[in-house]
């Protein structure tokens, strides 16, 4: 493996540690903002509207399983 090690690590080590720190902070901030958003917005009602659910059920069924119209 060819690699450039930096035998006397000076500024590249500092720069790379900073990059890792910023990346970590960004990730944590993103996680936190997601959590906060969930806390601020109340969870949606779990009550099911029978009419809507009926439609969606019918739409989700494969064509072969649908009952054909009575002649």
């Amino acid at each position: 493996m060819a690699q450039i090690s930096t035998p006397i690590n000076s500024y590249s080590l500092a720069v790379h540690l900073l990059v890792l720190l910023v990346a970590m902070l960004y990730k944590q901030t993103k996680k936190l903002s997601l959590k906060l958003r969930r806390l601020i917005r109340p969870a949606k009602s779990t009550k099911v509207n029978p009419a809507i659910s009926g439609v969606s059920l019918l739409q989700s069924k494969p064509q072969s399983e649908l009952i054909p119209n009575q002649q």
Partner: protein
Amino acid sequence: MSKLRRLAILIPAHNEETVIADTIKSCLKVVTKQDIYIVDDGSTDKTAQISKKYVPHVLSLKPNQGKAEASNTAIAHFKLATRYEYLLPMDADTQVSQHFLEQTLPPLDRDKKQQIACVVGKVIGLKHNFLTTYRIWEYEISQLIHKNAQAKENAIIVCPGCATVYRASIFQQIKIPTGTLTEDMDLTFLIHRQNLGRIVFREKAVVITQDPQDIRNYVKQIDRWYTGFWQCVSKHNIPWAGQPLDAEVAMLATEGLFNGILTLTLIALIPFAFLNHPEVLAIPFLLDLAVFMLPTFFLVIKRHKHWKIFAYLPQFYLIRLLSCLIFLVSFIKVTFGLDKNMSWRKIARYAVTK
């Protein structure tokens, strides 16, 4: 469209009879023998015969073509770029860990838009003496800190020739470049330059490689690496293409040059320091020890349980200074065209002791 096979392992080998069997055995733990391809690059020992005992696909080339050219010939001969989804080139002295593919393939599989060109694993060395311990320490810093940060910047500067799974289709667009002493770094720069995709780093995907056990081989190896680095810098017009790679390489190159000059200055200061002002050398040494050496030593101890590293502290300082000087010399060689007759300097191999 015919169904592609999943992954091929390609091992270019030149006089590797000491290690080739162990390498093939480690590969057989992760793929079938049908998916292992050996290219015997003009060996004069029993590399080909030993390989044929384990795998059916062995291509012998005469005369020796060099690692990159031999790999290109094998990729074309076995049609690896069109028959396979992924390609793992492997060094003949390297052993792949059992979980390597479990770590490297999922990111490529999930990437339906094919935005990832390759996934890079982590290289670790074996403990033998102060030199191999130095390399373990160096690998830890360079991969845990530098490579992880480079991955975030999309500026990984080298996909190790022994620890990278490539999307095989990229070899329909490019060949492994020749003309430098570090074909893996050259290939990595080419992937950046041609915008072939992102390079992902997976620290948990591990390969175990052999490192030099004596100073002579160590110098040979880093001289090749550093000279290859400067050849790649010159070949790929760094730092003038405006990619993150340019900024990253420019930073490492200037730092390396600065370190080389600093080393020369420190050497020149030794008589003065001993006679009049010992603090001239003592202060930088103590600072380096406290800020850099000791924290990184503890890092290695934590990850490798290698307490003996403390005993090697004086040798580590000598190797660091030597490396800085070689980096400076390699820059001068490439800049003034003194590297033209350089060949791929192979280091001594040794059988792995269980």
